[in-house]
């Protein structure tokens, strides 16, 4: 009996099996109840004790070896069979997906968020007021009397409905009425910003009948014009992300502040694009000033003990400047392509 020969034969037959059934037959032929190796093991009983010992060990090793080869082959066949089955389930990875608009947050939302955060770090809480205002809150309380030329600085929308003074309601032309509402409802110290929608009847590439402003108001015992300058410079540095920022404050006129100022930021044109911060041209950013004592008195604030400053700026304008956008009308067009191009994904919001 040649153990080696049996092993060779078995190895060959295992190798030649191409499916699980063949392999099972091989297994039965060698290791089954009447299998070759089983038969050999049975024949041991006819041998001498010594032979039994040595041949027995060899046969057991043979059985182990064949069993292992069958198991390996079995796994190979199984993987092969599954893969060949999966190949039939194949889908075309190269089929391109349909286009879809990537969802974004509107750039104005990003600006709202940043303005609230930056002023928040300086101690300003957020206040608000309605878009449909009374003539008194939008004008008279702010020291803009009827027939005053300053009213013509702003083209006002009127509503058919009339307020309790018999005057038509107006769409607020600025966020400044929130100053009045806050001063009437709260006691100083007051430190608020009020972002929101504002309206003027005007429409071209830089004017929209609806736009956004943020108002700021700081009233305490001693807030002065130096504080006003410092606050606004700090805001602009952070918002526009320019540390070395050249600015100028120049005298202006708003009936509700005195002295009044407008703040300009220097810019230059680099590669046909506006670069903010340096240069010899100026861009108007916002209007501001010390709150006119007449306004404080209109709101019953004691002007002997309290003073402060206010400012207002166009949020659409600073958004356009920051991101190089040119047509304010596209902000409100509802064009999803524009939003996808100019908006912010959640990670950046």
């Amino acid at each position: 009996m040649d153990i080696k020969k049996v092993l060779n034969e078995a190895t060959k037959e295992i190798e030649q099996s191409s499916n699980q059934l063949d392999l099972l037959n091989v297994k039965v032929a060698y290791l089954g109840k009447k299998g070759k190796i089983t038969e050999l093991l049975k024949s041991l009983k006819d041998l001498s004790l010594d032979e039994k010992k040595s041949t027995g060990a060899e046969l057991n090793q043979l059985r182990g070896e064949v069993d292992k080869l069958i198991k390996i082959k079995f796994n190979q066949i199984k993987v092969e069979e599954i893969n060949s089955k999966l190949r039939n389930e194949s889908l075309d990875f190269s089929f391109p997906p349909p286009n879809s608009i990537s969802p974004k947050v509107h750039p104005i939302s990003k600006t709202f968020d940043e303005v609230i955060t930056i002023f928040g770090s300086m101690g300003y809480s957020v206040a608000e007021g309605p878009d449909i205002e009374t003539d008194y809150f939008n004008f008279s309380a702010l020291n803009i009397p009827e027939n005053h030329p300053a009213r013509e600085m702003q083209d006002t929308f009127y509503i058919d409905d009339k307020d309790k003074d018999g005057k038509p309601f107006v769409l607020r032309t600025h966020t400044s009425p929130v100053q009045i509402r806050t001063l009437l409802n709260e006691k100083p110290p007051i430190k608020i910003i009020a972002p929101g929608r504002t309206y003027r009847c005007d429409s071209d590439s830089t004017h929209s009948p609806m736009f956004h402003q943020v108002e700021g108001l700081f009233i305490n015992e001693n807030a002065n014009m130096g504080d006003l300058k410092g606050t606004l410079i700090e805001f602009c540095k952070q918002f526009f992300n320019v540390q070395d920022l050249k600015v100028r404050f120049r005298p202006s006129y708003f009936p509700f502040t005195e002295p009044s100022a407008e703040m300009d930021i220097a810019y230059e044109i680099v590669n046909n694009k506006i670069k903010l911060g340096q240069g010899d041209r100026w861009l108007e950013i916002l209007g501001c000033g010390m709150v006119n004592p007449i306004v404080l008195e209109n709101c019953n604030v004691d002007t002997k003990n309290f003073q402060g400053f206010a400012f207002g700026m166009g949020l659409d304008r600073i958004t356009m400047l920051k991101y190089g956008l040119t047509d304010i009308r596209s902000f409100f067009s509802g064009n999803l392509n524009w939003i996808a191009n100019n908006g912010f994904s959640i990670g950046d919001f």
Partner: protein
Amino acid sequence: MKFSYSWLCEHLETDKSATEIGDALTNIGLELESLSDYSSYSKFVVATIKDFKKHPNADRLNICKVDDGANTYQVICGANNVKKGLKGIFAKEGMYIPGTQIHLKKGKIRGETSEGMLLSERELNLSDDHEGIIELSENFKNGTSAVEALKLDDPIFEIGITPNRGDCLSIRGVARDLSAKGMGKLKPLKYEKIKKLEFESPISWSIKNDDNSCEYVVSRYFKDVNNTKSPEWLQKKLISLGLRPINALVDITNFITVDLGRPLHVFDADKVGKKLDMRLANSNEKILALDNKDYTLDVSSTVIADNNNALAIAGIIGGDHSGCTENTKNVFLEVAIFNPNSVAKTGRSLGINSDARYRFERGLDKNMVLEGLEYASYLINKICGGSVSKNTDAGKLVTNEHKIKYDFNYFNKVIGLDLEPQTQVKILKDLEFQINERSDNECDVLVPSWRNDVKNNIDIVEEIIRIYGYDNINVSVPSSSKDEINNIENSLVNKKFKTISKLKKTLVSNGVSEVITFSFHSNRAQEILTGDTSLKISNAISDDQSFMRNSMIFNHLESAELNFKKGIKNIQLFEIGPIYNSSQSQENILSLLISSQDDTNSIYKSVNFNFYSLTELASKLISSLNFDIKQFNISRSTSNIYHPGQSAEVHMGKKLISRYGKVHPLIMEEFPKLKNTYTIELFFENLPIETISRINSINITDSQFQFSEKDFSFIFEKQQNLYEVQKYVTGIDKNLIKNVEFFDLYESKDLGDSIKSVTFRVTIQSKEKTLEEKDLEQLHKNILEKVSNKFKAKIRT
């Protein structure tokens, strides 16, 4: 306001350049809007085209031989007015062309060398004209500078005057302010008073209205004048401001309006009666004005009138009939003080924007009445000859100088800058305020007659800092205090903005884009949605923007339609913004629109968006605010925005929290291209902000023991609200019933029109143990019995 450098210098003795003056103007609050300073244009010179021929490689170009008096150059030129002998303005290579903002390079144009350029007006920034190159008269010598040839040697300033500075609506006023800034010295006015006022005026005044709209009027009568063309100096001045010279009398009044800021009017004395009145207009009184338009007046307007007619609208515009022409022989000059309010009111109601109105509205220097009268008399007499009457007047001239008690420390407190009293006093004196010092800290300030806007202490502070310079104010940044940080943390509005950010993040991560649309919507939208008609915008820009919106649905459908037209098939957008229920009720809501076309992509085909997908999205939104939609009362929506059979409303108590559903087909008729359109409105302001702001609010019990599921099928009344069933089943054993989920709904004719068959799966799990079969059976039985009793439901087997 516009003025030239040379005109300014007639009032201001100065050695400052136009640029320095321009900077100073901005620094004192007279914002320089533009300054045309052409001194750098002297490098461009007059040159002649001696000869030209067609460019061999370009039809529209010519090769010109150009002579600038010193050399001859070859210039390639594309202008259509190129001709032999043309004199134009020439720029050599290397020069900077202001209109195109480029430096000229020597180079070849289509293979031919070009050594310079003949310029158009646009290339010189003189106008928008780019039709051809500049053509000059033949008289100019080659080599003459462009500044001389084009008469650009007098820079023109254009400044913005804020409404408080009526005193600077004159060149003299601007010069006065500049002198206070140290830009030069104000010169005295150069004119002589008429030596002999020879006769009594045949025309007299009376002021008939007692509403103070005319305080004072004074006049002179000029006999035997010759109303010619104005002398050249006067014509040139008016032209430099873009005004058209008419005749001497009219030009003189226009000149004095700009030069002194003093509007006045000349009547042809032979066309008016002998007694003139200042009176209120009669109702529906008509006048043909100098602008050739008919105006109908009402009783609030003041007119100048004779016995028969209104001759002029006081302070605004003269009448055509009584105006001066070249044939005028006798003139009646009127100088008056009109009330700013009544001029403003009349001007606005008639829609007339005249130079006179502009100045009267902003308040005039009352001391300038007699000065203006004298100055005008001098010019009329000098230019037109004739003789001059004595004054005739009515009313009372009360000068408007007033006194303010001023505290020097107030400046330091408001500005945050210690400025010595003597520095403050010097600035005020430079501005011609008179000062009487009372003590070290206080003084009396007498405000000059032209500064109607300076009324109290803060106005004086402004005057001082305006001249001292805003740049000199020290900068400080007030830091935030603990109280302020607390205020922010507790502020409801801050919390609201956080909520809004949260909603935006939720939506964008669910594939919805944010839009912002106008707070208005159209007439049609208002009609269909039956909003409050008093929310109409009286002076709307267009019918599309004529009402304050009571819903965003129309704006969003319009946006969806726009995007559909751009080829976007799957539209998902939202807006967080205001809607208006009345003029005193505004709320911020979230409104979302999903409009999807039928999916034609057979490979990527997804399940079509439907009412149930919408419900899931609404529920997600509500849970992003820490609420569970199931805790609210949910019913069919009754709003006319929604499909009456595919919509729902969510209430918390009586407060509306959300509405959602398919958009009502009647609305969709307006947008025929859009299909399958759904909307959600979330009235997040009605939710308690404290819950929204909570960080950990969800409380799911987690158990390691085995769960079991059991399905139940019941036949309910069709109207049965399944949220109630869900709530009830969950309540049967709160400890064991983890979840009740509906997964099958069957309605059919066979079953009957008034009933529906519903299947739900109950998940049962204990926190303490694995439940035994008998516990489960007991619970199942319990559910079957209780549900069928409570809802009169039939158990389906």
